[in-house]
C-alpha cells in the first residue's frame, strides 16, 4: 500500500504525537530541573531525599508516558488495519467510489474509475466532477453540488466523459460528511441500461410514428370476430373513434346497410382463413354516411408464443385510386388516340441500341408496321447528325434535352420531314431519343408554288396595267388622228373650191405630218412597254395551266358560292402557249363568269372548265357559266374595247383575252349555254 497516500479516515495521530512530545519535553525539563537541584543540593547536601523523590516521580511519569506511547502505537496499527480493510473494499468495489470535496473536486477515487472511465487515479485527482460531465448535464450537476454543499445527500444521473471521449451514464449518490469537509460519492455505471432504455423508447416512438403516419388502416379481430385493435388510420378511414370500435362484435358499425350480407360473407371468409392473398374489396359506410371502397389484406395474428389469436386486416381506401385509375386509363386512351391519329410520325428509340421502343400509326405507315423492335437506322429513319459522339453516354443532368430541330430529307422516298428530336428518359429509365417527324413535302411544294405564284402575280399586275395603259393610249391616239383627218379634209374642201394656195398647203401638210409623228411616238411608248412583257411560248400541258387558273380563282369562287368544275379528258396533247398569258385569259373568263352569276341562285352557281381536241391542229378550251347570259347586241360588242356590262369595268378584259388568244393563233368566241348562261371558248395550237 502506498505510504504517502492520505488516510482514508482522519486520525488523531498528530494530536497524540504532540501530546507525547509535550510529555517527553516536560519530562526532560523536569529531569533537568531536578538534576540541577540535585547538583546544587549536593553542594549543600540537604536536598538529597527530596531529589530522590523527584527522580522517582519523573521515572514514573516517564514510564507512564512510554506506556501511553505504546498504547497509542498499538491503537494506530489497529486503525491502520481497519483502514487497509476499508481501502481494499474501496478499491475492489465494482461501483465507482470517490471522496470528493463539496465542490465536486475528487480527492480519492477507487479502481473502478480507471476501469469505467479510463483515467488513471492520478489524472482524476483534484479534478472536479464538473470538468467531466456532459455539457447538457452541467446544470443538473451544479444543482446537485449546490445541494450537497448545503449538507444534503444527493442522487443524480449524468453523463461523464471517459478518456476516449465517450460518455458513460453514471448514477451518483453523494453523501456529505458533516464533520469532515468531504463527501463520499458512489456512482453506478448505468450506460448499458440507459442505452437499452433509449433504444426501447426510440422503437416505441418509431412504432407510434409509424402507426400514426400509416395511411393503411389496421384492424385486428379475435377468433370470434371481435375487434381487438384499430390504428388511427383505420379510425380516420371509417370515421369512428377507437373507443367506438374496440370490442365491437359483428355486424360492425361501418358495414353499409345495403350490403350487410356480403359483409357477413367477407367476415365468414376471414374467420375461416379462406381469404384471397391479393386481398378483396369491400364497401364501407363511414360514420357520416359516405360510402368508400376499401381493400382488405388479411393475415393471421400470431402472438409471442406462436398462438393464433385472431386476424389482422390492412385496409386501404381505394376510392380515389379507383377514380384515379379510371381517369388515368381514360387519359391514356385519349393520349393513345391522339398519338395514333397524328399525321406526324412519332417514335422513341433507345439511345444506346437504336432499337425502336414505340412508334405511332403514322410512323408505322411510313416505315412498316413491324417497326417496333427494329433498329431505327436500319429502317432508314432520317437521323440527324448528332452533336454527341456515337456511343458516348449523354449527360443525365441535362435531360430532357433537344437534339435536333430542323428539316431532313428521307434518302429513299425523297420526302421532306420536319424532325424534332429530344433526348429524354423513357418510362423504364432508359435514355431514348424521342422524335416527331412531320411530313412537310407538300408544304415545301406549296412554298415553291407560292414563290411561283408571286412571280405570276407580278406578271398579272403588269397585264392589268397594260390594259389600263391601252385604254389611256387609245384616247391619246385619237387626238392626233382626228387632227390629221381634219387637216386633210379641210385641205380637200379648199382644193375643191380652188382656194388652196401653196403656202397654206405647205403649212397644213406640215401640221398633219407633225400630228402623225405625235401618234407614232405614242405608239412607240406602247411598244416599249409591251416589249418588257412579251409573251414566250413554250410547250406546256394544258391541264397545268387550267389547274393554275383554278387555284388562283378558287378563293374568289368560294366567296361567291361558285363551284369550279374541271372536266378535262385524259390524254390531251400539250399546247404551245405562254402559260402565264393563257392562265390570265382563263382567270379573266372565270372571273367574268363568277360576276355574271351574281343573280343566279347559289345552288346553281357553277363554272365548268372543259377542253377537247378540236382537230389536228387545235385544242378547244371552254369556260361555261350559268349566269344571266348575253343579249345579241352585247354579244356583238363584247370584244370591243371599253364595252363593259359591269359598273366599274374597264371594258378591256375580253379585248385583251381575244388579243392574247389571237397572238397564240387561236380564236376566242362566245356562245349561249343551252342550259342558261354563256360559254366562252378559245382554241390553242397543239404542239406538232
Amino acid at each position, binding site marked *: 500500500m502506498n505510504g504517502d497516500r492520505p488516510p482514508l479516515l482522519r486520525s488523531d495521530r498528530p494530536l497524540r504525537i504532540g501530546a507525547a512530545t509535550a510529555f517527553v519535553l516536560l519530562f526532560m525539563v523536569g529531569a533537568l530541573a531536578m538534576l540541577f537541584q540535585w547538583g546544587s543540593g549536593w553542594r549543600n547536601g540537604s536536598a538529597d531525599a527530596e531529589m530522590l523523590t523527584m527522580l522517582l516521580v519523573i521515572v514514573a511519569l516517564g514510564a507512564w508516558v512510554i506506556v501511553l506511547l505504546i498504547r497509542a502505537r498499538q491503537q494506530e496499527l489497529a486503525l491502520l488495519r481497519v483502514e487497509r480493510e476499508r481501502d481494499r473494499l474501496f478499491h475492489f468495489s465494482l461501483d465507482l467510489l470517490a471522496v470528493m470535496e463539496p465542490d465536486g473536486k475528487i480527492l480519492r477515487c477507487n479502481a473502478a474509475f480507471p476501469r469505467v472511465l479510463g483515467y488513471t487515479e492520478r489524472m482524476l485527482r483534484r479534478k472536479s466532477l464538473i470538468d467531466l460531465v456532459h455539457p447538457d448535464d452541467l446544470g443538473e450537476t451544479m444543482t446537485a453540488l449546490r445541494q450537497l454543499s448545503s449538507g444534503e445527500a444527493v442522487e443524480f444521473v449524468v453523463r461523464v466523459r471517459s478518456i476516449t471521449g465517450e460518455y458513460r451514464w453514471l448514477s451518483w449518490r453523494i453523501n456529505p460528511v458533516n464533520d469532515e469537509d468531504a463527501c463520499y460519492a458512489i456512482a453506478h455505471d448505468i450506460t448499458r441500461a440507459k442505452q437499452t432504455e433509449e433504444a426501447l423508447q426510440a422503437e416505441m416512438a418509431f412504432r407510434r410514428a409509424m402507426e400514426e403516419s400509416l395511411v393503411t388502416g389496421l384492424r385486428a379481430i379475435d377468433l370470434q370476430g371481435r375487434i381487438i385493435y384499430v390504428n388511427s388510420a383505420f379510425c380516420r378511414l371509417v370515421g369512428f373513434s377507437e373507443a367506438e370500435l374496440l370490442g365491437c362484435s359483428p355486424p360492425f358499425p361501418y358495414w353499409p346497410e345495403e350490403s350487410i350480407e356480403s359483409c357477413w360473407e367477407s367476415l365468414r371468409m376471414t374467420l375461416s382463413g379462406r381469404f384471397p392473398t391479393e386481398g378483396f374489396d369491400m364497401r364501407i359506410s363511414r360514420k357520416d354516411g359516405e360510402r368508400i371502397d376499401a381493400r382488405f389484406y388479411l393475415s393471421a395474428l400470431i402472438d409471442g408464443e406462436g398462438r393464433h389469436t385472431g386476424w389482422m386486416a390492412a385496409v386501404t381506401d381505394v376510392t380515389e385510386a379507383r377514380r384515379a385509375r379510371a381517369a388515368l386509363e381514360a387519359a391514356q386512351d385519349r393520349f393513345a388516340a391522339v398519338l395514333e391519329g397524328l399525321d406526324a410520325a412519332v417514335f422513341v428509340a433507345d439511345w444506346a441500341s437504336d432499337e425502336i421502343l414505340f412508334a405511332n400509326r403514322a410512323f408505322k405507315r411510313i416505315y412498316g408496321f413491324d417497326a417496333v423492335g427494329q433498329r431505327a437506322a436500319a429502317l432508314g429513319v432520317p437521323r440527324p447528325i448528332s452533336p454527341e459522339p456515337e456511343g458516348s453516354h449523354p449527360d443525365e443532368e441535362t435531360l430532357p434535352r433537344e437534339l435536333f430541330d430542323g428539316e431532313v430529307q428521307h434518302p429513299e422516298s425523297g420526302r421532306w420531314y420536319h424532325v424534332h428530336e429530344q433526348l429524354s428518359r423513357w418510362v423504364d429509365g432508359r435514355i431514348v431519343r424521342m422524335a416527331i417527324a412531320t411530313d412537310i413535302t407538300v408544304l415545301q411544294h406549296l412554298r415553291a408554288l407560292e414563290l411561283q405564284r408571286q412571280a405570276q402575280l407580278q406578271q398579272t399586275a403588269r397585264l392589268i396595267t397594260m390594259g389600263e395603259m391601252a385604254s389611256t393610249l387609245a384616247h391619246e391616239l*385619237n387626238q392626233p388622228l382626228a387632227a390629221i383627218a381634219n387637216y386633210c379634209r*379641210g*385641205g380637200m374642201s379648199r382644193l375643191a373650191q380652188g382656194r388652196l394656195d401653196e403656202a397654206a398647203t405647205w403649212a397644213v401638210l406640215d401640221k398633219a405630218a407633225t400630228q402623225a409623228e405625235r401618234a407614232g411616238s405614242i405608239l412607240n411608248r406602247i411598244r416599249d412597254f409591251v416589249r418588257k412583257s412579251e409573251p414566250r411560248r413554250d410547250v406546256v400541258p394544258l391541264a397545268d395551266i387550267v389547274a393554275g387558273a383554278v387555284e388562283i380563282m378558287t378563293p374568289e369562287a368560294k366567296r361567291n358560292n361558285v363551284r369550279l368544275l374541271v372536266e378535262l379528258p385524259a390524254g390531251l396533247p400539250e399546247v404551245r402557249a405562254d402559260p402565264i398569258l393563257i392562265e390570265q385569259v382563263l382567270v379573266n373568263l372565270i372571273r367574268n363568269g363568277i360576276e355574271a352569276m351574281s343573280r343566279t341562285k347559289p345552288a346553281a352557281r357553277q363554272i365548268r372548265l372543259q377542253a377537247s381536241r378540236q382537230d389536228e391542229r387545235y385544242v378547244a378550251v371552254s369556260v361555261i357559266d350559268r349566269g344571266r347570259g348575253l343579249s345579241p347586241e352585247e354579244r356583238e360588242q363584247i370584244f370591243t374595247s371599253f364595252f363593259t356590262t359591269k359598273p366599274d369595268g374597264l371594258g378591256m378584259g375580253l379585248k385583251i383575252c381575244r388579243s392574247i388568244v389571237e397572238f397564240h393563233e387561236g380564236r376566242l368566241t362566245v356562245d349561249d349555254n343551252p342550259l342558261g348562261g354563256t360559254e366562252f371558248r378559245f382554241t390553242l395550237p397543239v404542239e406538232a
Partner: protein
Amino acid sequence: MNGMEEEPLVHVVDDDEAMRDSLLWLLEGSGHRVRTYADAASFLATIGPSGSGCVLLDVRMPGMSGLELFEELRRRELPLPVIFITGHGDIPMAVRMLRKGAVDFLEKPFSDAQLLQCIEEALARSRILRERRGRRSEIERRFETLSQREREVLMLIVAGRLNKQVADDLGISIKTVEVYRSRVMEKMGCDSLAELVQTMTWWEEERARPWGQIE
C-alpha cells in the same frame, strides 16, 4: 334684229391645240366662221347674249369640263346648240346630254361629213332658237307697254269673253272696253283677235318649253 343677217359663228372649245387648229382649218375650209377657245372660261368670257352659231365641245377638259359648260349655256339660255366631241364613249352620258338638248355626241375619230352635217343642223337650230327668242322678246316688249287695265282686258279677250262680259267682269262700260281693246290690239301689233290669241298662246307655250328644245 340686225343679228339676223350676221354670219353664224362655230365656237370650238378644246384643250388640245392640234384639235383646235385642225378643226379651224377644216371648218373654215367648209366656209364657216370659226372661233377657238382653249378652255371653257375664255369662251364664256367672250360670248355675248346674242349672235347665232353653235359650240363644238370636248367632254374632257381641264378646269370646267364640257358637261359643266353645257349646263352653264343652258342656264344662260343662249341660242348656241352644243355638239359634244369625245375621245371615249360613254353611252349613258351621251343619252343624258341628248335629252338635255345637245345636238349630237361625236366619238373621235369622226368623219368630216358627219361633223359638218351636225354643224348644219346645229346652226339651223340656232336660227330657230334666235327667231323664237326674237319673237318672244318682241311680244314681251309689247306686253310691257300695256297698262294694268289693258292687260286685264287682254287676258279676258284671249280667254274668249265678249266685250259686254268684259265690261261686266271689270265693272266698266262697254264703250270703255272697246277703247281698251283697240289700244291692246294696236300695242300688241295684231290686226285681228285671232292673231292676238295665236300670239299669246305661242308665248305661253314658248315660256313653258325647255331651252334648246325644237318641236
